[in-house]
């Protein structure tokens, strides 16, 4: 069975299971609130595990890479980046993450650290939220 497109501007729920008070949500909130770009990167290789809305990654050096986007953001202030990383499953050391140095509307610069030193991370995840151009 083939499915078609469902176009609507507002979602409304009776919320009968919780408050029984009707609530409405503009579907623009769903679009604006979804991640616009994400990547799972293995810096050891380096290689993509998976991604959405990126064109390439550039391995700059140890613990330092760039994520280049396909659909760019409207401004450097129009997006935020969330990064998580774990060097290896048993590692509970102080691993820190930073980003947004020298970034542009089409490129996010990611740094990964461990105990103050740059470190390549096998599971480095980047999620970018914001407003696209």
């Amino acid at each position, binding site marked *: 069975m083939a499915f078609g497109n469902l176009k609507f501007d507002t979602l409304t729920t009776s919320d009968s299971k919780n408050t029984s008070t009707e609530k409405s949500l503009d579907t623009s909130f769903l679009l604006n609130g979804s991640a*616009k770009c994400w*990547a799972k990167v293995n810096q*050891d290789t*380096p*290689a*993509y595990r*998976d*991604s*959405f*809305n*990126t*064109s*390439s*990654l*550039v*391995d*700059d*050096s*140890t613990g330092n890479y760039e994520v*280049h986007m*396909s*659909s*760019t953001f*409207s*401004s450097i202030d*129009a997006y935020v980046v969330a990064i998580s990383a774990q060097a290896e499953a048993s590692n509970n050391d102080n691993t820190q993450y930073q980003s947004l140095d020298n970034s*542009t*509307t*089409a*490129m996010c610069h990611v740094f990964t650290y461990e105990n103050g030193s740059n470190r*390549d991370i096998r599971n480095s995840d980047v999620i970018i939220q914001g407003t*696209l*151009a």
Partner: protein
Amino acid sequence: MIKTPEFQGTHLWERLHWAKDNLDKVQSDIRVVYEDPEDMDSPAKILVPDPNWMACALQGGILPPVEVYWELAKDEAQPDFEKHTRGYLLHNTKPIEAMTEEQAIEYLIQKDIPQRVWRTWDEGNKPKMIICRTHQLPEHRQWRNAWQITDDIELAA
């Protein structure tokens, strides 16, 4: 092969959603190694193509011409830039046709590597940029921060 819908005028982000749902990832073993003349103290950088993006490039009808990114980069380089006002170029410009893997890599070079590198890649004492296969890179990253393009590299014809 699945047919690409008519995407001109559709937001690029929505096209990428379609591609994610409908196209298989294409893993390329091509890598681009380059050195930035404005950052000569840093080690060589390595560009890795996104397999989802590569699928879009080989499919055709999804990605905008690379010149669109140059136009947006020009806007962003202006001192009074606040936000993009010509984002429509990404969505309204006629998408490019299907590329070969080699053409897709050339597109990526022109999109994601600084122009100061690829426009003059073969000027100077040694090449600033090399296209290679993954097996031609060092096998481990122990000395990653010392990687450079060698002075005596032999280029294929």
